[in-house]
């Protein structure tokens, strides 16, 4: 577990004119395992947060034990479609694990047969066949996450959306339950529940 060194923060807040950029940095700092990028856009900022959230889901969702072949089997976070995270996701999961299983990131351009080896699959909103992807994972203990607007309608489990400038989560509890995933009530508290 890493904790960012304070001197970095305190030094950057020293000059009064730099107050606003600093605030931005401070918000990013709230996210674990993040390093301050050199250039930032609101887009990339959102993606950074998404990467962190993806990792955080590992803490609030329980997967069935049988999915791992061995103790050392990796915990796979898959990204289907365009990789909008850039380097952020890898930075977030670096040297992290879930119950002793190391986390790895896999990128998929299409729906391949090994997509179900993922424990979390992020489907980028630019990916055309969201529905097919979800259906291919039906009954499998894979947490599907997307920022696509129609995602929930296709029985997707978690959806990112922006509200009031903040990244929010919508959850389809029925879908996650059907897949044998246990979503923590704490996550349910802060998420918006999707109803058909």
């Amino acid at each position, binding site marked *: *577990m890493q*904790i*960012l060194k*304070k001197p970095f*923060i305190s030094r950057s807040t020293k000059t009064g004119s730099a107050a606003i950029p600093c605030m931005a940095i*401070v918000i990013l*700092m*709230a*996210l*674990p395992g993040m390093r301050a990028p050199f250039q930032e856009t609101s887009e990339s900022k959102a993606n950074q*947060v998404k990467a962190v*959230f993806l990792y*955080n889901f590992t*803490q*609030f969702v329980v997967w069935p034990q049988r999915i791992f072949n061995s103790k050392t089997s990796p915990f796979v976070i898959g990204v289907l479609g365009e990789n909008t995270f850039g380097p952020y996701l890898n930075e977030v999961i670096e040297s992290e694990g879930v119950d002793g299983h190391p986390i790895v990131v896999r990128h998929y351009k299409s729906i391949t047969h090994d997509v179900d080896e993922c424990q979390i699959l992020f489907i980028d909103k630019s990916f055309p066949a969201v529905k097919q992807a979800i259906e291919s994972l039906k009954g499998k203990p894979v947490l599907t996450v997307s920022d696509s607007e129609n995602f929930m309608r296709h029985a997707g489990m978690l959806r990112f959306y922006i509200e009031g400038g*903040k*990244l*929010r*989560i919508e959850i389809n509890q029925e879908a996650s339950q059907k897949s044998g995933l246990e979503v*923590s009530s*704490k*996550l349910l*508290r*802060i*998420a918006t529940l999707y109803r058909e």
Partner: protein
Amino acid sequence: MLTSAVVLLFTFLSYLVYEVVTFRQTYVRQLYTLSRIISANCTAALAFDNPDDAGEVLRALKAEKHIVAAALYDKQGNLFSKYPQDYPLQTIPRDQVQFEENHRFEKSHLIIFEPVVQNDKILGVLYLKSDMDAMYDRIRLYASIAAAVIAVSFVVAYFLSNMLQRSISEPVHALTRTAKTVSEKKDYSVRATKTGNDEIGYLTDAFNQMLSEIQMQNAQIQRFNQKLELTIEQRTHDLEIANKELEAFSYSVSHDLRAPLRSINGFSGILMEDYGHLLGEEGIQTLKSIMRNGTRMGQLIDDLLAFSRLGKQHVAKLNLNMTTLTKTVYDDLKEQYGNKGEVVINPLPEIKGDRSMLRQVMQNLISNALKYSMKKDNPLVEIGAYRENGENIYYVKDNGAGFNMQYYDKLFGVFQRLHSATDFEGTGVGLALVHRIILKHDGRIWAEGKENEGATFYFSLPVT
């Protein structure tokens, strides 16, 4: 009363300290429990950057009226959410944020830091600040209970001591009153009232017994006194009778014994005058012996009468010039003893006394001194006085025959003589008479002597 109050107070104080300590421990524990629940509920909010939700969780603390403030800090120590919303931020300084379970007391507040952990990952920290009013409420309640208990104890103790006082102090007071009555009125017939069979009852009994004893002894003493008075009266009466008899006796001695003696002497004298020439030398010597003894007997009777008369004689005290008195006495005696020897009369202090009696004293002492020193080659008689212990002490000293101190106790006795009549004539009454006169003047008489070396006679007279 005071003792029990102090004990009570100390008991309550120790309980209070114990109460405060345990209460603080309990309160810390309770607050930890609360903070753990809150922090557990805040994990998702921190993980998914949802301050609103965190705020909602913290607002639930509203139900806990002792929670003054709460705040949630993220992993970097940035304030994530706080309660109440308007609570001044500066009271929760960022550099005091700790990521360990920790608590401290600060200005009557309890502050707790509770890390927010999800699956062993620290996501941030919860800050809780609670006032200690609960404890103070409790202490106040406790103090008021203590005050009430003490007050009630005092009331109970007061009534108890009143009761005890009635049973203990009252008999003691009664005893004291009796003792006072006894000592003030000297009335030993009063008795203390016994109130019980306890120690005080025994004391009362003992006291009463003592009073009875005193009363009895007083009565006895009074009886003795009366008896004594009667005895004294009787003795006085007897003495008066004896005195009268003695007077009558001395009167008859003076009159009736002197008359025949006078006849013996008288007719012996006539015999000598008218028929002396017929008697021859031996007859004349025999007649002279009769006459000498008759004269001596007359002297004896006169001395004895003077001595016995002194008993009833009144001492008429006047200021006496002792020097003049002594010189007069000596002048009279001078002729009798001739001018042989030296007589020194030192100045003598004045004294109050009976002139004729003290004259008699001086006469007897000086004539004695002259008489006993005349046979010496250089007779010396010295008369003087000195002052000692408020008394004038007069002395008559001679270098004559003196006396043996072995027979000192016979010196002042009537008809007691230390020398034979052939050596020194005398009746043996002189010193007894002197002794008696000095005693009548409240003085003392004593003497020092050595055989053949002389004698000194001292007498003291009080200076008034």
